[in-house]
């Protein structure tokens, strides 16, 4: 019997959880199907099927689903409500399965389980069992896959091996959602361009627990959204860290939480720090030339200060 093919759209929270998700499905003896990276073709497909007001990351997600729909038996589109106590995720994650179903025709079956850990973390196990039931796997197999997947995820956030710190003369803090910062297509190779310019990028994921915690402790009010709060905490950490030479904020066009938290961070940056700060808004029409011009000017600014 051939393995069940599970399509994993390489977008949105894939970038945070893929190590866990992939290990989980592989332990269930499934085959993972995914695009090698986001491409123009994928984004174009997404833009075409997406509802007009969807944000850029959702458009990209839909493009990935389009790409996978003829290649997989199931596509994993979880409904992520909450991943920590008393906090939520952005509404787009709450309605993602509906968004996919209403935008795309000819879909294979979706694994659209609801992940809601607002009350208790152990709900995650129930979700895992639900998935394995849908895939006709045994209870024992599912427990094993759950444990392995969970451990893989924990390892990935503890030792972000694929998020290697790079070398460089300058250190620039990057603020932005993981699905923008780690998608080279959507951010137009920003991290690599920085590297070419002799700059080392520092992201939220590279901070250790203590650093993030000290940043988060300065957030004056509950942020409701897990990832926006992390971003804000990171920003506060950057403001105070004297190893950082500058901060670049990446926001996505149409992103609701960015329009709020992004603006808040930009204002706080003006008040709380003298560090060079630049905000870049990305959308499907963003020209690379403009991005490069700004990046180069930003790096020149850092060098200028240095001399």
């Amino acid at each position, binding site marked *: 019997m051939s393995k069940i093919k599970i399509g994993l759209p390489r977008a949105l929270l894939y970038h945070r959880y893929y190590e866990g998700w992939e290990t989980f499905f592989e332990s269930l003896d499934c085959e993972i199907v995914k695009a090698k990276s986001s*491409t*123009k*073709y*994928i984004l174009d497909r997404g833009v075409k099927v997406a509802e007009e007001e969807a944000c850029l990351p959702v458009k990209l997600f839909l493009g990935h689903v389009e790409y996978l729909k003829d290649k997989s038996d199931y596509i994993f589109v979880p409904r992520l409500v909450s991943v920590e106590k008393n906090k939520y995720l952005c509404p787009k994650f709450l309605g993602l399965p509906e968004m996919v179903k209403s935008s795309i025709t000819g879909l294979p079956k979706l694994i659209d389980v609801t992940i809601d850990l607002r009350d208790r973390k152990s709900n995650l196990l129930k979700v895992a069992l639900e998935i394995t039931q849908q895939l006709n796997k045994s209870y024992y197999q599912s427990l094993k896959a759950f444990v392995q997947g969970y451990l893989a995820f924990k390892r990935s956030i503890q030792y972000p091996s694929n998020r290697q710190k790079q070398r460089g003369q300058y250190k620039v803090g990057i603020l932005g959602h993981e699905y923008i910062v780690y998608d080279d*297509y959507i951010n137009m*190779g920003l991290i690599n361009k920085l590297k070419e310019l002799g700059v080392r990028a520092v992201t939220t994921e590279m901070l250790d627990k203590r650093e993030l915690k000290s940043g988060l402790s300065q957030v004056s009010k509950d942020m409701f959204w897990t990832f926006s709060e992390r971003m804000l905490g990171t920003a506060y950490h950057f403001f105070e860290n004297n190893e950082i030479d500058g901060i670049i904020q990446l926001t996505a066009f149409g992103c609701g939480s960015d329009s709020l938290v992004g603006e808040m961070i*930009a*204002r706080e940056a*003006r008040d709380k720090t*003298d560090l*060079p*700060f*630049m905000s870049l*808004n990305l959308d499907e*029409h963003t020209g690379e*030339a*403009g991005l*490069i*011009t*700004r990046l*180069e*000017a930003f790096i*020149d*600014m850092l060098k*200028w*200060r240095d001399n």
Partner: protein
Amino acid sequence: MKKGFLGIDVGSVSTNIVVLGTDNKLIKKLYLRTNGQPIDAIQNGLKKIEENLEVEIMGVGTTGSARELAGVIVGADVVKNEITAHAVAGSHLVPGVKTILEIGGQDSKIIILRDGIVVDFAMNTVCAAGTGSFLDQQASRLELAIEKFGELALESDNPVRIAGRCSVFAESDMIHKQQLGHSLEDIIAGLSQALVRNYLNNVGQGKEILEPIIFQGGVAANQGIKAAFEGELDTEVIVPKYYNVMGAFGSALLAKEAVQENDESNFNGFNVSDFDYTASSFECQQCPNHCEIINIHQEGKLVARWGFKCSKGENNQVQSSGK
């Protein structure tokens, strides 16, 4: 023979070239329309600037949106983005400047400096309302010489309110006001104010605009816009002497600096204006990214190419056919 440095700024609307002496004094300047033909503009510009020029070129710098292209053709010692080039020139010509307002053909920028150092900047993103191209377009619609635009605005006593958020709406608003019978002067003055408001709300949003303020770029020739800036900011705005070639000026200063570090210039000489340069483009089909690749040929020989997202372009693995 005197020694000097060449600065070339190839923008969307104009191509500017300056020659600076080793004392940083301007020897010659040139402002040309790019007319969508950057290669021709660079070659013509070089030819013109060379006429009767008794200067030995010790270094050359390029900037502007076609800086890479220009850099390949002339053999630049430094290829710099226009934000840095403008900042360098601004702070050189007006020492102590704290704010640079720059409006060019298709982009506008604001550069904030403190103690001679750039501390913040912004550039227009999605909207070109209020840049030179739009003013050009409106001038030709009204059958006015663009040079007259600013003078006319100054003659207005009662500027009308024009929507400046978007150039398309600004145009319909202007037409509407014309049809109502408002005078041309008032409409143009109103447009100038609208553009300045748009600039300050967009590019200038959240920026600390302190004196001394300089206004440069092609649009700084427009007295009406300058007056509108002064009205809105309630302070004096300085238009530097070489306001329309500041990018090129900065780039020549940067060239001087680069050559001091490198000791030797890469300048290909003025005879590059005699070579035949052609640019071609194709969409690479090697992966689904379909990068748009530009090839630059000198006398039929490939001398440069860019546009790749991957490293395939660097070792010329991909043929122009894209296969």
